[in-house]
């Protein structure tokens, strides 16, 4: 029976719904669950609904696998849920949301760094 002062019924002041990653798994083997929860809950604590999962380690084929429940995602976003930055980036890469600016910027910086590191190595070879 759930009483008014029961430990299971936690009431918060303020806070909002967030869609973020909850870390699980074992040592040296992380695993994320994409979860809709109150912002004041613990990262791995009680959540409202699980909307997907993400395996950050690449598999035998070199792919990083993620699963998303787009229907419920739309529902929660329509109810006014916020997104954490890695969740935004993941959804941008998935195509559900527009690409995050920092994804593009990071890719540009990487490309520039690679060009800079390969050009001086090519230069002294020729010269």
């Amino acid at each position: 029976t759930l009483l008014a002062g029961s430990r299971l019924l936690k009431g918060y002041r303020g806070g909002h719904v967030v869609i973020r990653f909850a870390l699980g798994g074992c040592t040296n083997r992380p695993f994320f669950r994409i979860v809709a929860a109150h912002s004041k809950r613990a990262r791995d604590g009680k959540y409202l609904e699980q909307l997907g999962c993400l395996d950050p380690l690449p598999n035998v084929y070199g792919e990083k696998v993620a699963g998303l429940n787009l229907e419920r995602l739309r529902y929660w976003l329509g109810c006014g849920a916020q997104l954490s930055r890695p969740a935004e980036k993941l959804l941008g890469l998935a195509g559900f949301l527009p690409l995050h600016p920092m994804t593009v910027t990071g890719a540009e910086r990487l490309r520039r760094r690679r060009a800079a590191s390969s050009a001086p190595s090519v230069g002294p070879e020729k010269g």
Partner: protein
Amino acid sequence: PVWGPRLVPARGRKTRYAPPAKSKASRLKVPPPVDPEELLVVTERYRQHRLVLGALRAEFRAEVLQKRREALLPQEGSAELMEEHQRLMAWNDEENARQRARREERLRKEEEERNRQKLQAAESRASMMEAMLKEKEKEILQLQEEAKSFITPENLEARIEECLDNPQNYNFAIDKEGRIVRRTVLS
């Protein structure tokens, strides 16, 4: 590393309130360097990203509200009610468009009228200014003509001699028809 140890500095043995070490006395904390053009580009990208995100959220919100309304509706005859509602909304939109067209027409006509009035006022003002200028010119010319017959210190002696030589007699009577009578003595 793809999945390496945490790259965030974690407090090891020292508490937050412990003083920093002597070897770190000359340490100068500098913020990471920022490329201004990259910053501009990134700010613009963020602005557009947030715009799109806001629009998507509005879309999803509308969907959720629609579903809730649909769930709340009475089940029997709901299809006809929805259809009628949509028909009426379409008719309302048409009416609004028609009224807007009429209103815009009226506003356009008023604008034209106002412009015409302004032009007319400007023209009348210009013509009035011209008339005034002409009047002033005429007056100046008239004054110049009259100035030839003024008495100046040089003419003074000559004019006095002239007046004394030709005495003017103002003794005359005049009746309503304008006939003048110069006879002053009855006989």
